[in-house]
């Protein structure tokens, strides 16, 4: 796929956020804040960073993108639809009977979805196993894994951090959705993770902290990871949960619920005027 430039990425991410809101209000259940917070990272992945071809989704040399925190999958579905993996009209089937867009992602239902996830803490280990196997066969593609900050509470995740460090999986890049919230509240109240950067360093990882809403930083970090040959890289993407919708930003209560019709209207208005930065043309 041809790569979008920074300006085009910003525009695309906004369109994707709008579709996401429409998708969630139609589904009537699901998560809002996490998917909005990671909209820029997903847009950057599918429209600039990943080496992939939606027309040949299972192309053997494609970069692999694992999603460990499966509950934010609506943003992946929306982004994949925009990239051409399936028709945009299908996003309204999210969480409905017979839909391939399951509430939490199931690998076998959509080509190149790569993983089945939802139970937290197990995604990085699968991505690490995948990267290990690919390296055995001298494959050139990269394996990416998006994880939440909350799932760093889980032992299985840290087991994978140990494993990837031990085996120097430099073909693996983890991206942490560092939005500081989880279902029960702030991550630092539930089970403090800081100093997270130092923790990863101590486990022999290359660590890059970025603003997860700055496309240049997202792209540069993924490029820098490719130049490291003796360690896996983790990109800690500091993001604002609910980003782009003023009344959802930074509020844990929006972690696990969708907007209702009225709230969705307000959210779409917010996105269309970029939180007041531009004059409304749609009203």
């Amino acid at each position, binding site marked *: 796929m041809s790569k979008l430039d920074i300006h085009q990425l910003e525009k695309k991410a906004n369109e994707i956020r709008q579709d996401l809101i429409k998708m969630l209000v139609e589904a009537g259940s699901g998560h809002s804040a996490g998917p909005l917070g990671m909209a820029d990272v997903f847009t950057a992945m599918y429209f600039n960073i990943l080496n992939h071809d939606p027309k040949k989704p299972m192309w053997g040399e494609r970069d692999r993108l694992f999603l460990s925190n499966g509950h934010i999958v609506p943003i992946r579905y929306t982004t994949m639809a925009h990239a051409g993996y399936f028709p945009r009209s299908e996003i309204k089937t999210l969480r409905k009977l017979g839909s391939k867009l399951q509430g939490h992602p*199931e*690998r*076998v239902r959509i080509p190149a979805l*790569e*993983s*089945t*996830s*939802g*139970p937290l*803490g*197990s995604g990085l*280990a*699968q*991505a*690490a*196993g*995948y*990267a*290990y*196997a*690919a390296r*055995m066969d001298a494959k050139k593609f990269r394996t990416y894994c998006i994880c939440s900050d909350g799932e760093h509470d889980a*032992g*299985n995740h840290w*087991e*994978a951090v*140990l*494993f990837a460090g031990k085996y120097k999986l430099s073909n693996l890049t983890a991206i942490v959705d560092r939005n500081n919230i989880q279902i029960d509240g702030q991550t630092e109240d539930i089970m403090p993770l800081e100093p997270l950067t130092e923790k990863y360093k101590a486990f022999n990882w290359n660590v890059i902290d970025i603003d997860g809403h700055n496309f240049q930083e997202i792209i540069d970090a993924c490029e820098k990871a490719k130049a490291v040959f003796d360690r896996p890289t983790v990109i800690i993407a500091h993001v604002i949960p609910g980003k782009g919708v003023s009344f959802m930003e930074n509020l844990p209560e929006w972690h696990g619920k969708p907007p209702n019709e009225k709230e969705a209207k307000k959210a779409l208005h917010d996105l269309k005027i970029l939180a007041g930065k531009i004059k409304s043309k749609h009203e």
Partner: protein
Amino acid sequence: MLDPKAKLSRKVFSKDIDQVPTRNGYGEGLVLAGKKNPNVVALCADLTESTRTEAFKKEFPDRFIQIGVAEQLLATVAAGMANYGKIPFISSYAAFSPGRNWEQIRTTVALNEVPVKIAGAHAGISVGPDGATHQMLEDIALMRAMPKMTVVYPGDSIEARKATLAAASYDGGVYLRFAREKTAVFTTDKSPFKIGQAEVLWQSKEPQVAIVGCGPLVHEALLAAHELEKAGTGSIVINNHTIKPMDEHTIIRAARTCGAVVTVEEHQINGGMGSAVAEVLTRNWPTPIEYIGMPNHFGESGAPDELLEKYGMKAKNIVAAAKKVIARKVKD
């Protein structure tokens, strides 16, 4: 009498029958599978010698991955490797894998539809001196409840070798259950083995009870059949090594012929192979059943034979259960 088609060991009723742990058969089968298919890899959670993964490690050092004491990691790294295209065998003690990592197996192997082969060593009460923490008695129940999972419990080391080799080319996730102690080698290289196909080992002329066993206790079932025959009671003995998918045809046919069933396993009676047999028969041919197995207890330290004796899993207990179930038969 012994069914000639089963081609069992000539020493099956002899005191000097060969004794080998089933985990040894796993180790041999794993090397054979590795030679046959370069995609076979082995992962182990710090129990390489006692799970008999050592031979594979020596033969294929580049295809062996040490995971450390982390069974959740064991399952999930393997799931990733299988997703890529490898055929991973993961080895640990059954109490830890699938005991500790059941959810990871459910989500990342079964639901994810990738071919990870799970080898649970040290299953059953016969683990002995290690005690209850290490005597896994609930794994068949855990694994057979899981969709898209195959469950195989070989009866001896030769069958374990065949089952391991067969698992490598069998679709999807497979759980293989092994014992710690030496147990009787009652099959031979020539004995038939196919995942999903139960084998009739003993067939009397006028059988009154079907004894359906799995794992090393199948040998106790044969000893029991021999005793019963001497006392004038005919029986059928079935090696029901594949608990899922079960060979319903063979089980139903034996139940129809005999009208009474005894199931035999080194596992909790709740949810085990016997429960699975009951599910088949209640739907198809309701038959009285007596169960040999662990009666809702944890184990304890002791010599393997002492424990089998204490918890009633010896041939004499099978004989008693056979008499009891025959007496329960519904009279026309």
